[in-house]
């Protein structure tokens, strides 16, 4: 998918684990894993807002557009 989720990078910068973030934003670890691995079809604004709030970052820090990446 051309949209890449750089969640691992931000989690490393903030020294936070995936399950910790999942618990804080109220989604399951499995769903966060789906997001991280690029298998998600869409993300809700509410989820994006919660992630940015917990990681103290901008959406652009997490989302990247790379047209050369093939669609799933």
């Amino acid at each position, binding site marked *: 998918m051309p949209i890449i989720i750089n969640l691992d990078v931000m989690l490393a910068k903030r020294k936070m684990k995936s399950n910790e973030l999942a618990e804080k934003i109220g989604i399951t670890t499995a769903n966060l894993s789906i997001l991280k691995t690029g298998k998600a079809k*869409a993300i809700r604004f509410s989820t994006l807002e919660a992630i940015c709030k917990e990681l103290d970052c901008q959406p652009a820090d997490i989302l990247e557009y790379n047209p050369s990446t093939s669609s799933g």
Partner: protein
Amino acid sequence: MNNKLNLFSRITNIIWYILLIITAVFFFLGMSFYFKGTNEISRISLFEIQLEPENSLIPYFIPMAFITWSFVIYGFFLFKKLIHQFKKRLFFTDFAIQTLKRIGYVLIAYTFLNSIIKNILEHLVEQQTNIRNSDYTLSPFIYPLLLGFFFIILSEVFKVAKITKQENDLTI
């Protein structure tokens, strides 16, 4: 919604057992026609055509009546299995999509088979009696045919719903 599905499942089960009883009764009546003779029967109705018990066409058309009836039984059996799936809240599955399509095809096949056999029997009875039946009507065929198409269209709708659900499940 669960209560409604449970209630509908119970009604479906009751109808299923009634259909099995009707099938058994028709089977034994049909067999008794072959073995005991026609002394106790005044008239026989096959494919909505009234026939005298001594009519020579009856032994050939009773098995055909069973064959068309088996389509009804099979269609309802599939419907019962589908309701059972829905009770488990498994709606937009491949099983539901395939079953809906199959029910549709069974109904359409039943309509065509029933109408062909009925027309053949009518023609043969007209030849026997020299009485022409001018009371033709399409209504016995239209309703199961439309219902068959409805189930096939519903199958396609469920296919789209399955994709939409998958996308929704992958929306975080």
